[in-house]
């Protein structure tokens, strides 16, 4: 079992957005902050981004992805952020319940005062861009290949063609070159680069890897394994230009053809998505249309830099902590009304003491035993009397009432409960 079932802020995902939200939520005064991560380690995709280029905006340093993640992992744990690893969230409800399946705890149900969605994005696949051809092994998204090479120590192939000039594709062109593969070609269907210019310089130009704009893969050949790809030039309408075809022998095709925000959970929670970005509509605190549900990072729209994801995570974490604190304050305004000595029950069983500022609250009670003499009905906060009234007698068969008035608000404001007692005078 989990230690707790209610948290101030629950964050789904532990990439740069999720960790920044966790750190900021704690700093903003959220008491319990939980990060749920489906992998067995914190850090998200930063862990496989071993190249430098992280931290320029935030630390004014040039760090590799894992070092950048490590700073936020260390900081969040030092601040007391709790984690639930190896856990996949199955559903988020509009009233902020989270259902998840955890390796360690089995099925878990958690209630959050505020939620930050930080699930990041997914890579577009071959099926999504419908590349024609045979269906051999050896076609990977660039990020999958990145995980193979940088974390699992496996090479996807030796002769590689990369489709798309997104940053992960450019980074992987260099990485595979470092590991001894030959990157034959990078093809980009657009007439311009999709990734950052500096990645073109330091990943392709430095190693004489040819890049062709307005080119795409027309057909994938190979029975069991990729044997070649046919590439072709396209016109403005992305139609193949006849006669431009070229056959490139290779054993691997990497796809770096775009990222899509991952919002299956958001949709279930009733979060409205912007058809343009594919992510939730958010306000400046990164709150979605569902009150108390925030979203930050690549789940909202795809960023160029992890540093910017971190900054968005800070906003969401701050917003979520403030929302949670407001709910917590409202919860603490509700105090129980306790049936004390010689009282069978009181209705209402709880009161919102804030309401007493402006209006009366009538407490209805039934006594346990009759008292056939002048009787004191008394309301106290455990120490001090708040109000009292005298009855000529009390009997279980006859309901009694006592009224709290706005002038009692000052006495009740700090109380965590009130008790009604009935005693002979």
């Amino acid at each position, binding site marked *: 079992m989990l230690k707790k079932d209610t948290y101030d802020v629950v964050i789904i995902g532990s990439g740069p957005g999720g960790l920044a939200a966790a750190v900021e939520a704690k700093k903003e005064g959220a008491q319990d902050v939980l990060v749920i991560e489906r992998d067995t380690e914190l850090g998200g995709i930063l862990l496989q981004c071993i190249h430098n280029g992280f931290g320029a905006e935030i630390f004014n340093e040039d760090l590799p992805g894992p070092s950048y993640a490590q700073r936020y992992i260390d900081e969040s744990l030092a601040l007391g952020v709790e984690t639930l690893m190896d856990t996949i969230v199955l559903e988020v409800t509009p009233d902020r319940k989270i259902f998840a399946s955890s390796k360690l705890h089995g099925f878990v149900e958690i209630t959050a005062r505020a939620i930050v969605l930080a699930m990041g994005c997914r890579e577009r696949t071959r099926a999504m861009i419908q590349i024609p051809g045979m269906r051999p092994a050896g076609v990977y998204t660039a990020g999958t290949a990145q995980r193979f090479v940088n974390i699992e120590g496996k090479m996807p192939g030796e002769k590689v063609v990369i489709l798309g000039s997104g940053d992960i594709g450019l980074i992987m062109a260099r990485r595979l070159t470092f590991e001894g593969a030959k990157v034959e070609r990078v093809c980009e269907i657009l007439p311009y680069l999709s990734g950052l210019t500096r990645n073109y310089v*330091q990943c392709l130009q430095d190693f004489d890897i040819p890049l062709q704009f307005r080119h795409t893969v027309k057909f994938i050949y190979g029975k069991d394994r990729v044997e070649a790809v046919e590439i072709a030039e396209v016109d403005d309408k992305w139609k193949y230009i006849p006669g431009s075809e070229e056959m490139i022998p290779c054993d691997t095709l990497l796809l770096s053809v775009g990222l899509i925000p991952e919002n299956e959970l958001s949709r279930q929670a009733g979060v409205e998505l912007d058809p343009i970005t594919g992510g939730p509509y958010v306000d400046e605190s990164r709150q979605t249309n569902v009150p108390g549900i925030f979203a930050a990072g690549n789940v909202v729209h795809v960023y160029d830099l992890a540093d910017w994801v971190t900054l968005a995570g800070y906003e969401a974490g701050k917003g979520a902590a403030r929302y949670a604190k407001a709910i917590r304050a409202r919860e603490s305004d509700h105090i129980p009304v306790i049936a004390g000595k010689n009282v069978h029950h009181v209705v209402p069983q709880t009161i919102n003491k804030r309401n007493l500022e402006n209006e009366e609250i009538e407490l209805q009670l039934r006594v346990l035993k009759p008292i056939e003499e002048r009787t004191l009905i008394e309301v106290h906060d455990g120490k001090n009397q708040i109000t009292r009234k005298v009855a000529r007698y009390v009997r279980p068969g006859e309901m009694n009432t006592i009224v709290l008035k706005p002038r009692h608000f000052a006495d009740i404001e700090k109380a965590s409960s009130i008790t009604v007692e009935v005693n002979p005078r």
Partner: protein
Amino acid sequence: MVEKRTLICVSCPVGCELTVTLDEGKIVEVEGNSCKLGIDYAEQEIFDPRRMVATTVKVKNGYHPLVPVYTEKPVPKPKIFDILAEVRKVEVEAPVKVNQVIIENVLDTGINIIASRDLPKA
């Protein structure tokens, strides 16, 4: 002899396109930069081009078979593949701590190769 060269600054993600004017092999003007880093980059790139190198090192008994590492500072571009070959020879024992020195003064560059994360034992 006056010569113009164009470079793209890789100091930060902005990627300014620099035009460098050289006279008798000396830089007389840098244009297109948006900050001082661009001028330093032009100087460096023309006379001693350097790059950060990030790769992985084999780990014994680690949570993963590899730990990511990088050069603390940019290293001379012509030495990149020699440095990678050096790194490939190394195997470290888990646990590894972030910033732990994996190779000191790699190939006499005066630059250390350090780990970029904690890696616990398996």
